């Protein structure tokens, strides 16, 4: 059954081949060209395109291997001077590379669904019925993971390799769930060397492995395990970053990986705490000054390229502040994890909270980063009604918040129908039962919001006068929901 599910999802992805793709397509094409045409010591220094490699070295190696295959498909896409090159063969190759690497994700989700289902203790009813429910829960978790609409929209339409990376994350989580901590740590380190955004989840890993693996029995064993873990982590890092250290380029690499030059919020504000903050700032401005001036300022803030942006009324935020806030708000849940009895469910919850907290307060967060919380949360759908309701709200919001990325008219039906189908599936399978009325109303309000921002704006002919407002409305509305989820889930975790 699950095998045919893979075939089906792959078919859907193939059907999406001619969809719109964003500049990320060109970014990855350029990385293919860079890794193929230039020697190792120029990978992070090449300046021929604005899309320099800003992922860690393992990802660059991944692109290098892809490029070796791409050479057979269309050699022109590997030339560093062919910017914005998108022949049919190139599109086909790149899309297909995403679809094929997604099988890592399928593997990870199956492993995870199996290990989480065996962890959830059965209420003592007759054994046969329990077996049935277990099979169904494995299937549903797997379905919710691999048919994750957000991932589909981001990877297949917008174009990124998130499925493959989340697959590695899930493999790592499944090892931790089974108690194979070394393997879990290894895969997580590998993941970090593919994409460093997963650093958001690292504190939970660190605390869990330190407290519930190393410091479990006696000091000697602790030291031995700690050293072993250290060797694993360091060896992965040295393989990945070693060549660049030897070349003396390590500062350059890190400069590319952590570009603090970019603003607090992305061009379209991700629905986090700073979206609320920005909205408050705009609101304050409107109350102080006349309206016309504001429009001009706000346009530059929500549209256009990545840039630094000064708040006009509220104090401006620096990277340090966001960093401190993130750490500060992570501490309680990490403390709770430290104090909890060794329970992998608690670890997964802490992962979710770490992801959510960094999303709420991080510097220059993308809306896609919400997936860092949603994917681990999917595993907990059957653990408790609290987790389940949180998943329902967050996954819906997560999908909705990537909608502004897919703004082309052909994608309107695709994205709205996908969301509708997802929500009705969740509804039919009883996932909405655990929501209270306000939460239900909030989710329903997404419908009118979508109509207003996508269709209403065009009909009312407001897009000329207030082009920024739909985006602002969307991110304000969504950030309220995400903020609510964060607070509720945090309290649930602490007082559980």
């Amino acid at each position, binding site marked *: *059954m699950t095998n*045919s599910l893979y*075939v*089906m999802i792959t*078919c*859907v992805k*193939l*059907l*999406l*081949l*001619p*969809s719109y793709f964003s500049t990320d397509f060109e970014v990855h094409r350029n990385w293919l060209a860079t890794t193929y045409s230039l020697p190792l010591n120029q990978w992070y220094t090449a300046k021929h395109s604005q899309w320099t490699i800003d992922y860690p070295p393992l990802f660059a190696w991944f692109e290098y291997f892809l490029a070796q295959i791409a050479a057979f498909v269309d050699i022109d896409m590997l030339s560093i001077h062919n910017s914005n090159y998108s022949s049919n063969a190139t599109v086909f190759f790149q899309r297909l590379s995403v679809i094929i690497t997604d099988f890592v994700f399928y593997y990870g989700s199956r492993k995870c669904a199996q290990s989480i289902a065996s962890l959830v203790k059965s209420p003592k009813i007759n054994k*046969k019925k329990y077996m*049935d429910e277990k*099979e*169904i829960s494995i*299937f*549903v978790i797997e379905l919710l993971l691999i048919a994750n609409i957000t991932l589909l929209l981001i990877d297949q339409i917008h174009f990124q390799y998130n499925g493959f990376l989340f697959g590695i994350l899930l493999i790592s989580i499944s090892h931790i769930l089974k108690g194979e901590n070394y393997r879990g740590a290894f895969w997580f380190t590998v993941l970090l060397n593919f994409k460093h955004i997963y650093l958001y989840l690292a504190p939970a890993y660190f605390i869990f492995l330190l407290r519930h693996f190393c410091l479990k029995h006696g000091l000697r064993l602790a030291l031995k395990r700690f050293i072993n873990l250290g060797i694993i982590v360091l060896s992965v890092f040295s393989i990945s970053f070693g060549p660049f250290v030897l070349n003396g380029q390590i500062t350059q690499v890190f400069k590319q990986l952590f570009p603090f030059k970019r603003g607090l919020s992305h061009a379209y504000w991700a629905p986090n705490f700073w979206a609320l903050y920005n909205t408050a700032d705009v609101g304050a401005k409107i109350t102080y000054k006349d309206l016309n001036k504001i429009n001009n300022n706000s346009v530059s803030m929500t549209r256009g390229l990545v840039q630094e942006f000064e708040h006009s009324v509220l104090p401006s935020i620096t990277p340090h502040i966001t960093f401190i806030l993130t750490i500060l708000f992570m501490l309680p849940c990490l403390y709770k994890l430290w104090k909890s009895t060794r329970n992998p469910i608690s670890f997964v919850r802490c992962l979710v909270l770490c992801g959510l907290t960094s999303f709420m307060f991080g510097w220059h967060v993308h809306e896609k980063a919400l997936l860092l919380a949603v994917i681990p949360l999917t595993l907990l759908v059957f653990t408790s009604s609290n987790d389940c309701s949180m998943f329902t709200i967050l996954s819906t919001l997560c999908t909705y918040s990537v909608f502004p990325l897919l703004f082309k*008219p*052909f994608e309107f*039906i*695709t994205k709205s*129908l*996908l969301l*509708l*189908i997802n929500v*009705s*599936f969740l509804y*039919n*399978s009883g996932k909405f039962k655990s929501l209270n009325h306000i939460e239900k109303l909030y989710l329903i309000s997404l419908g009118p919001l979508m109509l207003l921002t996508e269709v209403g704006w065009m009909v009312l002919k407001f897009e000329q006068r207030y082009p920024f407002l739909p985006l602002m409305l969307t991110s304000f509305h969504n950030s309220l929901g995400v903020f609510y989820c964060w607070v509720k889930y945090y309290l649930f975790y602490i007082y559980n």
Partner: protein
Amino acid sequence: MHLYYYTMTYKYLIPLYLNKVLNEKLVFMIAVLFRWFVSLHDYSGKSKPPMFGDYEAQRHWMEVTISLPTTHWYFNSSNNDLLYWGLDYPPLTAYHSYINGLIFNNVLPESVQLHTSRGFESKFHQLLMRYSVLIVDLLIFFPAVFWFFRQFFKIKNNNQISQTMAIGIMLLYPGLILIDHGHFQYNCVSLGLFVASVANIFANKTILTCILFSMALNYKQMELYHALPFFFYYIGSVYETYIKYSFFAALRKLIILVLSVLLTFLILWAPYISDSKQIFQVVHRIFPLERGVFEDKVSNIWCQINIIYKLRNINNQTMATICLLTTLISVLPSCLDLFKNPSKIKFLLSLINCSLSFFLFSFQVHEKSILLVAIPVLMYSPQSPFICTWFVFITTFSMLPLLIKDNLLIPFISMSLIYFIVYSNIEKVFSKQKETFKLNLLRNLSLFGCVILTICSIVLKPPQKYPYLWPLIISSYSCVHFIAFLIYFNFEQLMLQIPKKKLY
């Protein structure tokens, strides 16, 4: 479907769970979604001057109908070159193009300008065209299907699958989706009207049936494939009334039938009625005898005979007569049986038999005409889902050469695979009996043959001497299946026992 919950083994567990979760609304949304996915792909004749394809034909008709007065639509003139996609469908299609044209004229005027807009293509235009199909699909075909199965499941209760499954099987049928939303045509309109008229037969609403079927006929003349069963069903039931009740009851029934059909035709042909020249021209355009016995590689008898003996040697008049005679002979058993026992389930089977005979034997057949057979087969699917879906797979496969030409290979493969998986999960829910095992093997072999031929026609280059080798093999392969299915369905109809207490 309660009885199936007893077999709670792992194999059936998940399909059963999905059966519980997926209700009609979800099936509806999924069907719309897949239509849209296919819409993202290329259409026929994309960027292929000078003639382009069916997409351009539809656009051209919008251009002609909004620029010229009604009486000029079917005539050749300096403004209306009939050799360049002249209108060759009945008036209702022309009216539909006219309405579409008015909308396009408001939204994107340059796409429907007379003369200058030939071969007009843009991303926005494609979006509008795709929307225009999706909207009529949602307005006509979807409601008709839902309505039909509601009526159908009211009457019969020895069905093997549930209403939701039947709707799913029908709405996800890849052939129609690929032709309407990929290749680009408005088959969903005429087929939707046809399904609605059959639904009305099941609901015993005679007048509505006549009106809807006349409209279907006036949208595409190919609906004539279905006309005979309607005729014999009603003649049979009039005769039955005569035997059972009285002459006047029968006469009253007959008059109602004739009047509703005539009135519908009169209204739809209103602009052309006044002048006999107009009528002849329209009829001449609709039934072009000069266009040969089949187009491209069709999986019917004549195309197969053509391999051995070139039919072009026979002149079209003779050929048309031969076609007519063979078709009549092959539909005769089914029609006479229906006349003797006008029951609803026999009527459905007769629809299959007649349309399949027409497809196999009649004159001027397109490969797309197989859709006219596939739809009644799908309507019959609750009675024998196994055979019906098998048939439907072959119909989709028989259109493969056309789809490859339109660059729709990926949607074809994806949609067929998805359809197969959906069906095999449905099968897990309903099939507990083991006697179909041998047939199952045969079905799998036949579908495996389709897979092999698909791969061959993509990968292997045909020899220089026979450039159309693969399309020809595909059409022969499908034709063999169709003949077998024709025999099977005829057998099924003739062997069907009519219950003593009839439901009519």
